[in-house]
């Protein structure tokens, strides 16, 4: 069997992206090797939302030693290991595991967001029960659904997602039909006049460039129909990594490619 290195995989990713109109930006600090390097032999590939210890372990258990996470591995966006080393016990445990299991990590973030469609957005839509093909315009990330209440919509989203830690702001009885979706921190502001509900990943609660929670609370007081459904960064972007696995599979036919979930982040108390 031909041997496939992590460098081969990355070169193919760059080449196919370029053909598809996304020229590789070598200046990126994100889309780089985070552990191991181009010479590591690849036994299988796991795409995942985040390079969590859990995702790496689950991938390794399935014989997949190349991890392609959308987000970071060392608990900060720049993947500065000095920051992570401040907890030597957990950092070392994770690194020792990666060493022992011949893991190679290559992050794919900036270039993935430049692809069209941006899989994180189509993933978000699918994840909350919206068909990406029904966007009001291609890549608009907007949907119009039959009128319902914010409470019913949120309950439907939670049922499809199956995760407890979904947070909602707004009057549950507000009548809504026009939805804008966001992935990760790219959660759109909720004050657009032609939008009733934003379904997003993560956004600052206060002191951002626009604080949607307070706006929606005031809208509720005034009887203006607005809603904000926040899935969590992980929940909003994880399913896009399924699409990324599907995209990768044909370009690396030598090995198995699978989507491995990074694991639930939060639980909620009673």
């Amino acid at each position, binding site marked *: 069997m031909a041997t496939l290195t992590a460098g081969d995989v990355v070169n193919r990713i760059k080449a196919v992206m370029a053909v598809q109109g996304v020229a590789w930006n070598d200046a990126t600090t994100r889309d780089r090797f985070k552990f191991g390097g181009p010479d590591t032999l690849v036994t299988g590939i796991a795409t995942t939302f985040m390079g969590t210890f859990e995702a790496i372990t689950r991938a390794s258990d399935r014989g997949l030693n190349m991890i392609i996470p959308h987000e970071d591995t060392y608990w900060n966006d720049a993947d500065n290991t000095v920051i992570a080393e401040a907890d030597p016990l*957990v950092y070392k445990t994770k690194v020792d595991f990666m060493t022992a299991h011949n893991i190679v990590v290559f992050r794919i973030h900036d270039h993935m967001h430049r692809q069209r469609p941006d899989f994180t957005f189509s993933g978000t839509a699918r994840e909350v029960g919206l068909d990406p093909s029904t966007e009001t315009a291609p890549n608009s990330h907007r949907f119009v659904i039959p009128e319902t209440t914010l409470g019913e919509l949120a309950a439907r989203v939670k049922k499809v997602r199956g995760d407890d830690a979904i947070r909602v*702001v707004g009057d549950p009885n507000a009548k809504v039909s026009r939805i804008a979706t966001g992935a990760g921190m790219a959660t759109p502001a909720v004050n657009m006049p032609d939008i009733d509900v934003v379904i997003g990943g993560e956004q600052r609660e206060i002191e951002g460039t626009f604080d949607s929670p307070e706006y929606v*609370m005031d809208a509720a007081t005034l009887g*203006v129909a607005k809603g904000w459904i926040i899935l969590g960064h992980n929940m909003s972007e994880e399913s896009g990594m399924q699409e990324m696995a599907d995209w990768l599979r044909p370009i690396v036919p030598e090995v198995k490619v699978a989507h491995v979930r990074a694991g639930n982040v*939060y639980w*909620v*108390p009673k």
Partner: protein
Amino acid sequence: MTEISRRDFVALTAAGAIATPFLDAASLRSAATVTAQEIVDRIKKNIGVEWGNDDVDTFKAGDPATIVTGVVTTSMATLDVLQKAVQAGANLIITAAPTFYSRADLSTPAGRGFGASGAGRGAGPNRGGSPGAAPVPSPATMSGPGTGASAPMPPAPVLPRSVVPPAQTLAAVTLPTPPPIDPVYAGKNAFIEKHKLVVFRLTQHWNQRRPDPRAQGLAAAMGWTKYKTGEYSLGYEVPAISLEALASQLKKTLGARGGIRAIGDRTMTVRKIGLLPGFTMIQASIATLPNVDVIITGEVQEWESATYAQDVAFAGVKRGFISIGRVVNEAPGMQVCADWLKTIVPEVPVRFISAGDPYWRPL
């Protein structure tokens, strides 16, 4: 916190009079009234933190010369809180969070109508002065014109449109030009204008006080004050409790709904608690978690502290992480603020009003 009673109010006023026995009758009468500006001046003088000229802790709405009838502190000056303040007879609201939906805190939507975005800060439609009158310059000097996120002063043709206070009704706010009026900004501004409210943001300086008022207030609410171990009220060693029970207790005591979330083994035993109030960066989480059983914080970036806590738990290290939400986290600090303000503003009642937890969870 409890609303100040009439008896307390009389007692405080009397105490003030006793403390200044040599004032004549006229001085006493004038001492009975206090303006928003005077209260802010007392805050600056007594807060114990050097007052910096930032554009965060400033007046956000209303005329600082307004005679104050009562003070309300809150974690966030939502319209609901403003309504409750009016019901309580208060007209000065001191808030930890922004009033107008962003750190820039402009009373009109940036980039949509009302001319340059910078105009909203110093000269929003809710600023003092009667319709048609020249704009009052003092609020603008209070909030630092041209600083921070503000654009340079708008050109002459734009300025009058944003500084002339609109008529009182919502319909009359409509401009001659077509940009859509944001009904939420308009509704909040109209309420503030109608009730002549004054809103002042107090957060950066307040949270620099030591002990940290948010930690101090949270510990008091949870009954942990006697268990304090660390500096600045940030560390506690409490009787053993499971992580899940602790999270539930926090939720009930702080009145949280959907905003409280946790990471870690629910059954693990917690004794050592580290409080990291407000927005917490990864460096602070990593510096704290290895030395405690659980971190309780306001808000983090999910790809930082939350993922770190996830990895800690997956590595089998028994440590927990609880995020209670920024607004819920600010509330105890603003309760402490109300208690403190009572000591420097004896003339009028001071009370805390909760903004609640913005979040709920679907069933």
